[in-house]
């Protein structure tokens, strides 16, 4: 096996992993604490990408555009919570699935009206374009930047949840929502804040994915499914679990696609190995999920003791 290829694929896997983590962190907090299934979480990912692309075209400064896009998406997330989801807490999950699926359609059509059906291009700034030598071969700077931002966000979340009052209330609320209220905390405001935070994280993932994938309608739904796989593997409601699960899924998926065809070619004919490798690779994370569910039904790092 080519060591360089392995290293590069590891970085690619990490990059997919941290993006999945940004998606999954919000999803798992919302699911774990509010017991709400939010299918529209992918819409925040799409919104982040579109708004960043639009603002970059407008102001031609990447970082301010990104910051504004995160704030705007957080605000949209808060609005969605207040206007729609607040009515759905405590209801059967089916209502939540229906309502948030409706939100997906709403956001997809809204984006189509505003930006048209064609994918748009998110131009990364010059200092993120290009490649640098890594292990003796060129590697895209933007992918390294995504890994760095993802890890930094994970650290920030760890601090927020582990060290701040808001984090204490998030953890307390996950175990006993009613008691938190009875001690004088406005749980609706807490939920709104968590929701806005989750939306901003999804938008960050979308904005970072923009330059390497296409910014297009429906981009959120693809990653949403992966993010659900991540939180099931990690343990629903657990941000640490989401981190571990996301890296695992990112690496397994990337290794599978890159290495399986070659591995199979050792004892299969090349064309057969390529075809079989590709299809097994696309199943790899679901096989992983099935294994985790079989041996650790509550996920690798379950939230509740």
């Amino acid at each position, binding site marked *: 096996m080519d060591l360089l290829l392995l290293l590069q694929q590891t970085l690619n896997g990490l990059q997919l992993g941290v993006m999945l983590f940004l998606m999954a962190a919000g999803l798992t907090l919302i699911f774990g604490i509010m017991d709400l299934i939010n299918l529209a979480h992918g819409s925040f990912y799409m919104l982040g990408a579109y708004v960043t692309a639009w603002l970059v075209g407008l102001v031609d400064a990447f970082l301010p555009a990104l910051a504004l896009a995160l704030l705007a998406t957080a605000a949209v997330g808060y609005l969605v919570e207040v206007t729609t989801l607040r009515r759905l807490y405590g209801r059967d999950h089916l209502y939540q699935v229906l309502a948030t699926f409706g939100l997906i359609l709403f956001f997809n059509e809204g984006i189509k009206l505003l930006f048209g059906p064609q994918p748009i291009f998110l131009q990364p700034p010059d200092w993120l374009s290009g490649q640098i030598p890594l292990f003796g071969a060129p590697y895209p700077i933007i992918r390294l930047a995504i890994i760095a931002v993802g890890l930094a966000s994970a650290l920030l979340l760890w601090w927020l949840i582990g060290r701040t*009052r808001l984090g*204490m*209330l998030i*953890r*307390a609320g*996950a*175990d*006993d929502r*009613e*008691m*938190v*209220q*009875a*001690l*004088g*905390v*406005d*749980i609706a405001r807490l939920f709104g804040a968590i929701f806005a935070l989750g939306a901003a994280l999804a938008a960050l993932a979308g904005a970072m994915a923009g330059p390497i994938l296409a910014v297009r309608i429906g981009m959120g739904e693809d990653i949403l499914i992966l993010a659900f796989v991540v939180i099931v593997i990690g343990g629903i409601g657990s941000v640490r679990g989401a981190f571990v699960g996301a890296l695992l899924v990112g690496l397994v998926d990337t290794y599978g696609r890159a290495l399986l065809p070659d591995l199979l070619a050792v004892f299969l004919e090349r064309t057969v190995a390529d075809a079989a490798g590709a299809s097994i690779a696309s199943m790899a994370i679901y096989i992983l999920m099935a294994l985790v569910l079989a041996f650790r039904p509550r996920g690798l790092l379950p939230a*509740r*003791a």
Partner: protein
Amino acid sequence: MLRVEGLEAAYGDSQVLFGMELAIDHGALVTLMGRNGMGKTTTVRAILGLTPPRAGSVGFEGREIAGWPPHRIARLGIGFVPEGRRIFPRLSVRENLVATARSGEGGGRDWTLDRVLDLFPRLAERIDAMGGQLSGGEQQMLAIGRALMTNPRLLLLDEATEGLAPLIRREIWRSLSRLKREGLAILLIDKHVEPLLDLADRHFVIEKGRCVWQGSSAAFRTAMEEIKRRWLGV
């Protein structure tokens, strides 16, 4: 301070309170007694808005609070120590105390972390332990401390010493007498009330969702045998 009149509350179709009444004066220690299932916990839950009253009134400091959301009621200055203690298991002792801490109505911050740890020195020894690792007695102290950190004017204690060893029970009671001396009003639900008669001001006995007897500690002593036989014995 607190006046409950004609209170009715239900869980779904099963009504528990049928015109419950209760009154607590400033700085008073009041007990609520009754057999299991008669509505003691529901009375406390209805006062706090956790089980919204169907009818009747709950007046606190002159305001009608029936129908208010729980967090607003709590913020008026009502501290809650629930049955079963309901410590946050994955928060440390320190975090359990500070997570919901706030200054009282009017900005008073009489209860700080230091003062709570002074009241319950055992909590200071276990300050970094997780809530779920504490013994029952330590959890009870933590639950009281957690409520005090919200700087309440009235403390509602549901089953204050249930399941605790006699020594721990006495320690909890000692802390309550100190709280009363400091002017905090307390509503206490406890199976053992005799040791509290000197400390308590007034007693309410509940049966089938109604108050069937109320009176001072002196009146309770006089009528104790009958009250026990009719409404408290099993």
